[in-house]
């Protein structure tokens, strides 16, 4: 049964939240500028609470069950994060308050900048970008600014692996680069020979995700970076898969010049049904001056008895502002809380158990499903959602059937280089029992694919709604649920 829209449960004249009458004299509204009709709903508070409660019950969520989406790192979102974000001393501060009145906020942001530097092995961090793609855009702009400052304006190409997430080529194109695709080899690494061919002084850099979107650690990462640096390019690290590297390896140590972090993946801030995220950017020493800003700096050193005085400042050759105010402070707070609860040893334990969980699932499934890259994976792995002897069954069917087993499907049809890809990332917060149940479900579904394929084709069966007509949605394009003419 579909839940009506908020407009459908409106009733003319019904009032929700009330406000006091004005305690000041009224001033006339400006002539000719007053709005005559305001087509907003008219519902009671209980109407609203019930409506959105019903809607929430139609959702799958991490709180409700396993969400093994590859490269999304759907780990548990700690509730303490929510409490801390709501402390009035944090939540009720205005972004333009004088620095002396928000030293708590600035100190916290400074500390997170320092934590991310330490975790990544990079020289400086900006917390301003709002999401991963925003961080990528920032990073690519930094690369361009660096090359321009060094008179290297002929570097017009950006190399992007064919396994890359779509934001990588989209970001490069946004910044005016010509995107050149680099193929992968049979072990799932970047094809070194192909890369060598592509390296020249027209290359601005390479965007590299490590571990890559196949869940594999780039086996020749040092050679790859040497090749790019050797022809004068810079290497951008897409930090989406950092969960596998916490305390295990630092991108800065390996030689990455710039990277972004996804606080809503690696650092547990909640996904919220599509954001907000947060995508801080870290850079190596030679790029420090190009970071966006303003960022938090120490304006006056502290002493034994006194905390330092923090303030905001623009880097010397900054690419400029990429967002209003200072970044997603609410997510910065949550990530800071998270890292504080783990410490150095805890960071490594996160990576170890994320990788352990993924390899455990791989071991349980690789006899049933074809895994194209046969080696120890990192925090995620990709398998094919097809069977030679069960034609007509595709990754999509398997994904939809998993919903009947009360699991959210893994990522499907990405990365593009694997046929009928199913990308699975359990994360470290799932226990062994859940993993066993998940593996069991997938094995059962593989059996069903052979014996009762129709069950898969018509799946899901137990969800609030069945498969939806996406062609109709795109053709008829109904994007709004109420029109003034209907009044």
């Amino acid at each position, binding site marked *: 049964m579909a839940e009506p829209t908020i407009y459908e449960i409106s009733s003319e004249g019904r009032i929700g939240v009330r406000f006091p009458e004005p305690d000041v004299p009224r001033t006339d509204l400006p002539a000719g500028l007053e709005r005559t009709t305001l087509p907003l709903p008219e519902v009671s508070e209980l109407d609203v609470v019930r409506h959105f409660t019903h809607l929430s019950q139609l959702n799958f969520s991490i709180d409700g069950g396993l969400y093994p989406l590859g490269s999304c790192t759907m780990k548990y979102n700690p509730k303490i994060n929510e409490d801390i974000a709501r402390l009035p001393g944090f939540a009720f501060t205005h972004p333009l308050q004088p620095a002396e009145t928000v030293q708590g906020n600035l100190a916290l942001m400074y500390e997170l900048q320092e934590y991310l530097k330490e975790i990544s092995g990079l020289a400086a961090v900006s917390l301003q970008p709002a999401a991963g793609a925003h961080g990528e855009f920032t990073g690519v702009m930094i690369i361009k600014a660096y090359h321009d400052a060094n008179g290297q304006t002929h570097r017009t190409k950006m190399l992007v692996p064919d396994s890359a997430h779509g934001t990588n080529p989209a970001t490069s194109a946004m910044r005016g680069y010509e995107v050149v695709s680099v193929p992968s080899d049979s072990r799932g690494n970047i094809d070194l020979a192909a890369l060598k061919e592509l390296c020249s002084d027209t290359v601005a850099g390479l965007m590299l995700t490590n571990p890559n979107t196949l869940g594999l650690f780039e086996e020749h990462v040092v050679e790859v970076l040497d090749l790019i640096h050797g022809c004068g390019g810079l290497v951008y690290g897409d930090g989406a898969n950092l969960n596998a590297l916490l305390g295990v390896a630092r991108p800065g140590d390996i030689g990455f010049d710039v990277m972004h972090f996804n606080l809503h993946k690696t650092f547990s801030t909640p996904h919220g049904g599509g954001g907000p995220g947060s995508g801080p950017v870290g850079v190596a020493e030679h790029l420090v001056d190009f970071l966006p800003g303003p960022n938090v700096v120490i304006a006056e050193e502290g002493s034994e008895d006194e905390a330092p005085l923090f303030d905001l400042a623009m880097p010397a050759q900054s690419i400029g502002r990429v967002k209003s105010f200072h970044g997603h402070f609410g997510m910065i707070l949550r990530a800071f809380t998270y890292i504080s609860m783990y410490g150095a040893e805890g960071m490594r334990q996160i990576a170890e158990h994320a990788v352990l969980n993924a390899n455990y699932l791989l071991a349980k499934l690789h006899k049933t499903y074809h895994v194209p890259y046969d080696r120890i994976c990192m925090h995620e792995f990709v398998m094919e959602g097809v069977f030679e002897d069960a034609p007509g069954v595709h990754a999509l069917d398997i994904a939809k059937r998993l919903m009947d087993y009360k699991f959210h499907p893994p990522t499907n049809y990405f990365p593009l280089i694997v046929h009928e890809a199913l990308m699975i990332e359990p994360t470290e917060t799932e226990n062994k029992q859940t993993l066993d149940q998940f593996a069991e479900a997938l094995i059962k579904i593989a059996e069903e694919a052979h014996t009762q394929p129709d069950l898969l084709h018509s799946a899901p069966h137990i969800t609030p709604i069945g498969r939806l007509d996406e062609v109709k*949605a*795109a*053709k008829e394009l109904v994007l709004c649920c109420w029109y003034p003419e209907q009044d």
Partner: protein
Amino acid sequence: MNIPGDLKYAKTDEWVKVDGNVATIGITDYAQSQLSDIVYFEFKVDPGESVKKGGTAATVESVKAASDIIFPVSGKVVELNDAVADEFEGINSKPYETWFLKVELSNPADVDALMDAAEYEKYCEERGH
């Protein structure tokens, strides 16, 4: 897979019908089946515009993908089939009867560089599916 014998074909899956010095361009049965149900179509050029082989003629969108229609020849755009922008179902159901634009050739040799039906069929087979 429908591949009429009297047309020429580009590697980017456009078909070309030549009449004197004018080339009529559409997309092949293979292309429309790869895209599946088309939901939108948009021209990227205007009549009278000079265009180069390899440039973008139009964008066609389905729920799964968005593809550029690439000019298989160079020349001047003489006519756009405005009807296509409204009736794009025809692209899926009758790909060879639904044309997109007509180009007056600036270099007739461009046509010779295209594949014939047999070559295109082989090319499609090599790509699988």
